[in-house]
């Protein structure tokens, strides 16, 4: 299960936060844990350089893309490798939508589109689509190119 997806700006303010199967009372804990993890490690990181950590039995993969930091949390079959796949889809889609690694402003300008993309990538804790071109078509309700 993909437990959480969190996107924050460079100072740790939340831009997107989605949880699946995480009790409400634990969400705040996760938010502060992830933001602290980013603050400790992402300074000076290169775009899309992957960072990985584990906390109890869950895995966390996170990265920085332009002005935003992206964190994904998973457990069981969504281990560090599967999460790396998920985060790769997310970052490449965001880059595609924003045409470059986004500034915070650009990210917020494209907020609606990004929400649609995320909806195509992760659906209630399960990875659904992995190809950015297909996702680009799906959010415009166009069938996949190969079909």
């Amino acid at each position, binding site marked *: 299960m993909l437990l959480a997806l969190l996107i924050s700006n460079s100072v740790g303010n*939340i*831009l*997107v*936060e*989605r949880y699946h199967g995480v009790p409400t009372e634990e*969400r705040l804990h996760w938010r502060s844990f992830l933001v602290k993890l980013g603050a*400790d*490690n992402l300074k000076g990181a290169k775009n899309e*350089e*992957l*960072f*990985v*950590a*584990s906390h109890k039995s869950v895995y966390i*993969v996170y990265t920085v893309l332009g002005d935003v930091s992206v964190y994904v949390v998973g457990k069981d*079959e969504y*281990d*560090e*490798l*599967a*999460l*790396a*796949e998920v985060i790769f889809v997310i970052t490449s889609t965001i880059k595609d939508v924003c045409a470059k690694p986004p*500034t*915070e*402003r*650009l990210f*917020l*300008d494209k*907020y*609606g589109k990004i*929400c*649609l993309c995320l*909806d195509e990538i992760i*659906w*209630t804790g*399960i*990875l*659904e*689509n*992995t190809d950015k071109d*297909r996702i680009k078509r*799906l*959010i*415009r*309700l*166009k*069938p*996949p190119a190969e*079909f």
Partner: protein
Amino acid sequence: MAQPLVKKDDDRDDEAEYSPFLGIEKGAVLQEARVFNDPQLDPRRCSQVITKLLYLLNQGESFTKVEATEVFFAVTKLFQSRDIGLRRMVYLMIKELSPSADEVIIVTSSLMKDMNSKTDMYRANAIRVLCRITDGTLLTQIERYLKQAIVDKNPVVASAALVSGIHLLQTNPEIVKRWSNEVQEAVQSRAALVQFHALALLHQIRQNDRLAVSKLVTSLTRGTVRSPLAQCLLIRYTSQVIRESGSTQTGDRPFYDFLEGCLRHKAEMVIFEAARAITELNGVTSRELTPAITVLQLFLSSSKPVLRFAAVRTLNKVAMTHPMAVTNCNIDMESLISDQNRSIATLAITTLLKTGNESSVDRLMKQITNFMSDIADEFKIVVVEAIRSLCLKFPLKYRSLMNFLSNILREEGGFEYKKAIVDSIVILIRDIPDAKESGLLHLCEFIEDCEFTYLSTQILHFLGIEGPKTSDPSKYIRYIYNRVHLENATVRASAVSTLAKFGALVDSLKPRIFVLLRRCLFDSDDEVRDRATLYINTLGGDGSVVETDKDVKDFLFGSLDLPLVNLETSLKTYEPSEEPFDINSVPKEIKSQPLAEKKAPGKKPTGLGAPPAAPLSTVDAYEKLLSSIPEFANFGKLFKSSAPVELTEAETEYSVNAVKHIFDSNVVFQYNCTNTIPDQLLENVTVIVDSSEAEEFAEVLSKPMRSLPYDTPGQTFVAFEKPEGVPAVGKFSNMLKFIVKEVDPTTGETEDDGVEDEYQLEDLEVVAADYMLKVGVSNFRNAWESMGDDFERVDEYGLGPRESLAEAVNAVINLLGMQPCEGTEAVPNNSRSHTCLLSGVYIGNVRVLARISFGVDGPKDVAMKLAVRSEDEARAACCNNILLKCKVFRKFLQNNLRSLDPLYYWCYFHNRISYNHSRTN
């Protein structure tokens, strides 16, 4: 000076700072949402408002029920628009709002219409939304469409239906299970993601049907799996099938070739999954492990942190069970100590600590020292724990490891980290006698500058116990007395108690301690003054308070003789009144102990975390319990208490386990009983023991338990007499006997009349290992050589065919009941020979060391050469006496060997024992 020119770009930067959602307010956005009701819909404007609503929801903002309903109804109006972009937003918005069951009806018809639309993408999205908001009744109505969708040509539609199925399986399993034919068809799909989702769903549908899963795995491992994600799932399901098939035969393990083939897959994800699956196989052999370890080793030097992390994490797990298999990767792992990712570095270090040998410890410690300064406390704790185990494994290396611990103790760190270090030092002091003095001094230095009251008081308490037993107790006094000047009241009070302990236990220090204690009489804190006064008056008293020196020590430092839990309960129920609290009214029976043991199996002693005043060690607790029973008073000193042996199966009406307490000429069985029936009270509970199969034992007394209420454990005892110092063995059958009374669960009242009843328990055996105490030595070679070979006995045994060398070693260790030393209980994979070092104390306080060399002869035949050295307490005792003790030990061995079938078989029926009485004859 001219102002720098303002470039156009600077303006844009300012703009970039400005968020389009700046100052966004929920109330205002909800007002804006009224545009959804406009007769002339503006799709662009509507999309913008939806984006704002999404932003609010993603920020953790919540809508009240009324607000959510209002927005939901407004959003449903947007189905009228034909704008595609807006429609996609509407789908997302409905999912985010998760309307309640009574509201869903509003959109159902629109969604059903979309679900039958000719536009594929409408269908896919409508399926996802419907499945998100639907309930069981609606699901039956749309089931037909969903089944069609699963096999739809459009992969997006098929995936939407399949992923919906995965979610719906949680809430409506019966319905989803009916789709298995369609899902089966989708597994064969040429679209990679459809196959992935179908495989996940099909496995979930059939997960309880082993045969079906096995068939699924068999067909797919032969066919083609298109996506790496699906291949990973398949590997997981394959290892499940292997695990459940229970085959541990080497060479022909089913599906191993498939797993091994996956190690050459082009996707890293698949390679890892296969490597991990191989390392987790039950009873994996080193031949099977090698290819997996090789690919993991390659990934250790990958440029991608995720791959390095995954590799080192897997190897770390392997190192727990097969340390030797990982040693080839040690060089690669050493380079990971400097990895920027601290998780990777910590995993590398802890793996190295597990796989390292004695000679590499110093080098490793050097590397770790540099590493420790720049990792977080949580990682440091893991490293400290690994170092503690390493030190217990290689006690000879205690000096460098203890130095390392004391160095990191001086550095900055939080409470948990410092506590972990202090706990480790305490454990090392307890387990490695040579480390005691240096360890205590490190702790003393630490409390000179310790900011944690808890740790200071615990260390002071520990110093009070261990310090007086050292060669020069006076050197600790300065550190302790410094606390009286420099610390807060809690620590000062602890320091006073510790000083008093030194005074009481070391006569030569007594006058000097008195001078110090008198100075404490002027302390500003009541507790500190009270303690000082008490100690001065009792220790240096004129006999008016207590009579003798022994009484003083018992009074001041003896334990309370009662379980603290009981004392705490009694104190809580005590109501302040004229009548003082009577400590004799506290029950002495240890009630919760057996349950606590069951709940925390394998919990390690936690150093200072378990101070002697709090939960006593199990042996101490048993000793206290037995000494509180007058009938056992003349049995002498308790030699050993066994671990509890379960006499009932789990979840039976009455749960009973037994502990065997061994005395010199007596054995006491302690039956820990728990009544698990709420409406029953048991009274007069005893165990009737039949000892006809234990000839040397004679029952001397049985101590019944008066009552056993529901879920409150209690004990009953039966004591036997046996010949003094003889390791008598035998089998005892047990029957629980009691009077059962009904309890009214509502009022808690018990009926007056009861019925006598019996309950058959499992048999209990006293075996020779019960007469052996596991007592380790810090340096086996020294101990062995210092004991000398004058009293050595060497025998050789053929153990016959065994499953593996490791299994034979384990069996012999278990039946001897001795403590393996220096990690020699671990047998490297595929070894043909192994030497195991054991140490113990045999009944009669005879120190025994054993060096056992095992060798595999032929295909599986294991031969064993057992060399035993034993010492006399006085050393000067005559040779005969030692021989006698060796004979006793020999008998003990023979008794034990008889209990292990194949050993017995070979030793006695085939008469293949060859005694090489090396020196003793």
